């Protein structure tokens, strides 16, 4: 099935029709999507700062990651749920859009790095290296790029 055919099929489904015809549904879903993304970015920034030995240093990395990373997975779950609803509601806006695939590729990297940070927080949390600091900075940058790519979906680069 081609991307165009998939897009046409998705937009004809009952769920897509429901979201499309419910007043304010897309805006409401987008709002939840953005709130989750904002929370995720702030949590990622806090954890990354802590990996680099800055930020909330009064708490150990393992303790901070133990609190923040589960919250990040919850936000990520909501992000994927609302994102999936937006794709079903407006498939023509995403499925044939390069910006959407850029966002998805960056999201995959961000998920992998979240798992990596969770693992170093469990194993050797207080070992600080330049590599860890660089990866932590990259991690925040990727989340910011996810936001930019998400916004560019509306502009079709």
């Amino acid at each position, binding site marked *: 099935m081609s991307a165009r055919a998939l897009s046409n099929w998705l937009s004809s489904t009952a769920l897509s029709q429901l979201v499309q015809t419910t007043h304010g549904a897309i805006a409401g879903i987008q709002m939840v999507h953005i709130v989750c993304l*904002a929370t995720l970015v702030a949590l990622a920034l806090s954890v990354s700062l802590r990996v680099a030995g800055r930020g909330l240093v009064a708490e150990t990395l393992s303790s901070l990651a133990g609190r923040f990373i589960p919250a990040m997975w919850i936000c990520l779950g909501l992000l994927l749920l609302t994102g999936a609803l937006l794709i079903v509601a407006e498939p023509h806006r995403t499925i044939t859009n390069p910006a959407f695939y850029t966002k998805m590729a960056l999201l995959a990297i961000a998920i992998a790095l979240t798992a990596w940070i969770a693992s170093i927080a469990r194993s050797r949390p207080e070992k600080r290296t330049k590599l860890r600091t660089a990866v932590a900075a990259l991690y925040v940058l990727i989340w910011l790029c996810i936001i930019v790519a998400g*916004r560019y979906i509306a502009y079709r680069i």
Partner: protein
Amino acid sequence: MIAEFLQWLQGTPLAVSIAEEWFPLVESLHVVTMAIVAGSIFIVDTRLIGVTSKKLGFSYVSDRLLPWTWGAFACSVVTGTLMFSSNATGYYDNAAFRVKMLLLLLAGLNMLYFQKVTFRGVSAWDLGRPPVAARVAGTVSIGLWCGVIGFGRWIGFTQS
């Protein structure tokens, strides 16, 4: 007077270049900075409500995170002003834009009241459960910032 100023503003070379070429990039940077502002505020506010970071003092959490909030907010004001300039008359007439500005003002007033009144006695509750006034301020703040995001997004649906 206001109409003339807005017409002049959106006719400046900078505003015209944003409207014709740079709007997607400026808007993306605005969303990035707003995400950092709102997200960091959510972390501080949930501590203020007393549901997260309970082992850390409230003033410690706010001291460590609010510099990021203010830095991102300054960038957000710059990018927001640039976006506004690109279609000043349109934004000025937009109801969602006006509500967003009102919610921003209320969020500022809520923070100002908290800083001037409730925060004065922080030494008594810094490491413990915050008083009702602090928890109300945190809850109101989260609600207002969700509103800022919601109406900010709604501008895109209503702006021609």
